[in-house]
C-alpha cells in the first residue's frame, strides 16, 4: 500500500517535472551554437595561400558531430563560397572526442569549441585594395538530452593587400590552438609503428604502437572499408599499444582491406591526432 502511494506521488512529481523539461524541448534550443567565419590574415595577397576557419562555439555540456558522427547524429557540414578564381580546399575536421551515451550509443564529436579549416589559394592576379566577399554555409546537430538542428550562413570581407597595407596574421591564438587539433600525417609520428597481426573469419587484426604515449584511441572515417569491432589498449613501459579487431563492411573486395580514420595520442595533458590510411598487403595475411 505504502509502495502504491509512493508510486502515485512519484508519478505526479515526474509528470510535473517531465512536462517542464518537455516544454523546454518543445520551445526549441534554450541556447545555441555560435558560428563565425574567420581568416588567418588581415589582407589577401595574390597567389599567397591563407586559411579560413568555420568556428563553432558550443554551449557547455552540449556536443556537435565530427565528419563521422558515430552511432547517431549527423556530421557537421561547412562549405565556403569564394570569389571567382579562388581555389578552396577540402574541409579539414579537427580530431574528435568520444561520447558514450545511454543505450551503448557511441558518438564522435566536439564539446566546447571546434574549427573546420579550409586552405584558400587566391588567383595570381588581384586588383589592389579590392574588397573580397567570402561566405560560409554551415549546418550541424547539437545534442544533449534533446537534439536541435542548426543552420547558418556567415560572411567575411577581406581586402586585397597593397604595398602600403601588406596585411599581417590575424586570429593567431585561435588558429594556433585549432590547428593543433587537426590530424597530422601518421608517418610524422616519430617511432610509431603498425603491424597487421593476421586474419581470421572476417576479422583482421591491426596493432598500432606509439612510444611515449599514455593513451591511444581510434576514430574511423565513415567511408573506411574496415570497421572497428573491438579495441584493446595495452600499456607498455615506454609505449602504448592499441590493437584493433577490424571487419570488412559492405561490398569491399576481400583483398582490399583498408582502414581510414584518425588516431588520438595522449601524452599527459597533451593530445594530438594522426591520420591513418593503412592497407593490409595482399597475400601477406598471417594466421593469428
Amino acid at each position, binding site marked *: 500500500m505504502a509502495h502504491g502511494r509512493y508510486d502515485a506521488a*512519484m508519478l505526479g512529481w515526474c509528470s510535473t517535472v517531465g*512536462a517542464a523539461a518537455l516544454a523546454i*524541448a518543445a520551445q526549441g534550443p534554450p541556447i545555441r551554437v555560435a558560428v563565425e567565419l574567420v581568416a588567418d590574415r588581415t589582407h589577401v595577397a595574390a597567389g599567397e595561400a591563407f586559411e579560413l576557419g568555420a568556428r563553432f562555439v558550443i554551449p557547455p555540456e552540449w556536443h556537435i558531430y565530427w565528419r563521422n558522427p558515430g552511432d547517431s547524429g*549527423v556530421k557537421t557540414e561547412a562549405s565556403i563560397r569564394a570569389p571567382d578564381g579562388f581555389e578552396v580546399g577540402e574541409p579539414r575536421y579537427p580530431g574528435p572526442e568520444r561520447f558514450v551515451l*545511454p543505450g551503448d550509443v557511441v558518438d564522435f564529436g566536439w564539446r566546447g569549441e571546434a574549427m573546420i579549416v579550409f586552405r584558400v589559394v587566391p588567383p595570381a592576379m588581384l586588383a589592389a585594395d579590392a574588397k573580397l566577399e567570402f561566405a560560409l554555409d554551415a549546418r550541424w546537430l547539437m545534442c544533449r*538530452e534533446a537534439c*536541435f538542428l542548426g543552420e547558418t550562413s556567415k560572411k567575411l570581407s577581406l581586402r586585397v593587400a597593397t604595398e602600403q597595407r601588406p596585411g599581417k596574421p590575424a586570429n593567431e591564438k585561435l588558429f594556433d590552438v585549432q590547428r593543433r587539433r587537426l590530424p597530422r600525417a601518421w608517418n610524422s609520428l616519430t617511432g610509431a609503428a603498425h603491424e597487421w597481426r593476421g586474419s581470421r573469419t572476417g576479422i583482421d587484426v591491426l596493432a598500432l604502437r606509439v612510444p611515449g604515449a599514455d593513451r591511444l584511441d581510434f576514430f574511423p572515417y565513415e567511408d573506411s572499408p574496415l570497421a572497428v569491432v573491438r*579495441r584493446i589498449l595495452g600499456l607498455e613501459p615506454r609505449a602504448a599499444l592499441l590493437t584493433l579487431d577490424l571487419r570488412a563492411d559492405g561490398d569491399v573486395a576481400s583483398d582490399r582491406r583498408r582502414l581510414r580514420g584518425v588516431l588520438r595520442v595522449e601524452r599527459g595533458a597533451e593530445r594530438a591526432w594522426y591520420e591513418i590510411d593503412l592497407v593490409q598487403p595482399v597475400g601477406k595475411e598471417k594466421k593469428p
Partner: protein
Amino acid sequence: MKRTHRSSFVLALAAAAFGAACRSPSSSPSESGATPSHALAGAGVVETPRVAEIGAPAPHFALRDTDGRAWSSSELRGKTVVLEWFNPGCPFVERSHDVGTLARYPETARAEGVVWLAINSSAPGKQGHGLEDNRKAKAKWSISYPLLIDQTGEVGRRFGAKTTPHLFVIAADGTLAYEGAIDNAPHGEPESGELVNYVQRALGDAKAGAVRTPRTKPYGCNVKYAD
C-alpha cells in the same frame, strides 16, 4: 549571461534528480547492460554490444501503444513487420514525417500487408517522452499505424536502436532482415544521386528471397534512453 548559466545549472540539477527518481522501480537491467562498456578506461577491452543480428531471430517485444492496446511480437508471427524508432521532438523524425519518406511510404507498405509499428524509447525527462505529446504528434502527422511506448528503453536496447528514426525489418519467418536508415536523405535531399528508400528496397528484396543491403547506417538523434 549569468542568468543563462544559472538556469542551465538548475535545469541540469533538476534533470539529474528527475532521471534518478523517475526510473521505473520494476524495470530490470537490459540485455545490453551486461555487455562491456565502450568507454576505454585505461587499459581494457571494448566490444561492440551484442544486439539484434541480421539473419537471426528478432528480439521479442511486448508493449502498449498510445491507445493502451497491447502489442506482442509473438502475435505477429508469419507477418512482415517494420519497426520505426520514433521521437516527436527529433528534427529528423519531424522532417521525415512532415515532407519526407515517412510521410508517404508507411501507408504504401501497409497496403501491401506489412505491419508497421513506431516505437518511442524516450525516457521520462528527455526529448520525445510523454503520452500526450506522442498522441498529438501522431495526430499532427496523420500517423495511422500504432505508436508503442517503451519508456524503460528495454526493447530499444534489445534491438540496438541508436537513432530516431532507426528502422528494423522483421521477415515473416521472424528473422531480422534489415536495420538502418529509412533513406539516404538526412537533411531532406539525397546525399548523392537519387533518393533511395532503403526500407522499400529491403521489403522488395525480402519478397524475392534475399535482402541485398541488410544494413545501412542510420542517421538522426540518439535514442533518448534513461541514464
